[in-house]
């Protein structure tokens, strides 16, 4: 019984890290881009799969599915499934002409073919960091691709 209680406490501690406060000093933009990309490939924009997000844990980025797409007339189309997130690579990150915003160009292998896509992200500081975490996606990738581990999250 004591072990069960201990397991319960440990589980509680782990579950609360999903919503823990962002760190005092945020990771650099490369690391933040990597975290956000991981969220993208783990169901951030697919309501049916967004419980897969629990596989993505980060203190720096608020792990929350994109707010409900109220107004969608049909589910977002999943363009493909990749075997592993390790097949995703950030090719380039460049600053764009708006404060704290970056363009993230990345590649992934789908059906053994290399594909490219991009997303815009924004970093946060000050009060908004306490509310929203260190960064968020501004413009998501064109295609919705998920990892196969999200098939049965």
């Amino acid at each position, binding site marked *: 019984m004591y072990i069960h209680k201990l397991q319960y406490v440990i589980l509680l501690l782990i579950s*609360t890290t999903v*919503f*823990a*406060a*962002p760190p005092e000093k945020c990771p650099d933009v490369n690391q933040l881009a990597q975290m956000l990309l991981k969220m993208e490939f783990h169901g951030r924009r697919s*309501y*049916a799969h*967004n419980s897969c997000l629990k596989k993505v844990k980060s203190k720096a980025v608020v792990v*929350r*599915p994109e*707010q*409900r*797409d*109220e*107004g*969608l007339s049909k*589910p977002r189309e999943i363009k493909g499934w990749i075997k592993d997130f390790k097949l995703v690579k950030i090719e380039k990150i460049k600053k764009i*002409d*708006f*404060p*704290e915003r970056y363009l993230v160009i990345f590649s992934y292998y789908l059906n053994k073919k290399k594909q490219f896509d991009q997303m815009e992200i*924004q*970093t*946060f*500081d*000050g*009060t*908004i*960091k*306490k*509310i*929203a975490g260190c960064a*968020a*996606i*501004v413009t998501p990738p064109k295609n919705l691709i998920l990892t196969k581990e999200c098939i049965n999250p």
Partner: protein
Amino acid sequence: MTSIVRADLPCSYSCTSPCIPSYPSPIASLPPLQTLRDRLLDISTLSPSDAADLLMNTFYQNCDAADLPPYLLLKHGEMRGYSLKRHPWNGGSASQVVDLTKAVESQYYLQCPQNSKRKFCTDFCKTPPTYIWGGKGTYKKNGELNLFTNENSIEKISKHPGIDCSGYINAVFAIAGLKVRTDMKASKVASTTPAKWFMKESTCFDRVKFNDGLKAGDLISWRKHIVMIDKVSTDPFALDSVNNISQCNSRYIDPLKFKLIVSNSLGGINDENKDQIFSAADLFGDEEIKSSTAPFTGVGIGISKIPFGHLAMKYPVEIMELATSACLAKFGKESKWNKIHITRHKLADTKSMPANHECLETDKDKVNIEGRKCIYTNCNM
């Protein structure tokens, strides 16, 4: 209901009594003054912000709803006593009452129990309203809008009134007698015109630039939400302390210091955790915010007036884009912001409505709002 003072006109005396603006002599040619009651009875002269106040009071059957202090999310949290229900694949939220006491207590704008001496009022103390995705009221063929019911698919789940963000804004313009779209009448607009539609400059709305100044009745819209400005200060984004363009970023811009109140129908913030209730401290972790134990249940309050900056909890990218763009504009740089827009109805500032205008609803298509009789009969105007 306390009088709504026209911000553009001076009061003739202090506002301890109903404040009726006095027209200075240079504009004596304007038509005779109308009292607030007259303006509200003749809905063709309602400004968007007047219409928003009328709609709010009518929706809650409460004379004072629109005049209550802004709903502070960090203090009050979200609705309690509801079970959250989700659309199966797009996640739109509806809810059911499971604990009536908590539901009534958490609905800020209801007065329960209702005063039994009031006439013609509907009692919502057993079915307190919330935000409901897809909720827009029902528009009858005779031109009446019933805000207290929704289409069957929604009524099956949520057996209480509720409205979503675009449903609310479309209803506001319908009541004001102002067209949102020139290609269809008000009763058809609500089901076809989501928040993101209002982002584009259209035949009935003009884009507002920061240097033009923001006004009550202006709309702020982005892909996921739309709000109407209720009260705005001369420094809405708290940029007075920003001294140079290099400070136009999130280190120097604090959404919790914005001086801008908006009216909207607000959905849940913590809406993916239907089986858990989180407090503000759990979600946001800040020491100051930790002092609040406001629960975030995922069930949004619905029609409400809130500090605009509080929406940064749910839409940080859009809210910060707007404030950052305002900051850049302060230093003469026009940014290519495109995620969030401010628009104003072409007839919003019109003091004397033209007889005909493509953005003015015709007499036969004007929308009346059910439940208005309660307000006119019982509210001290």
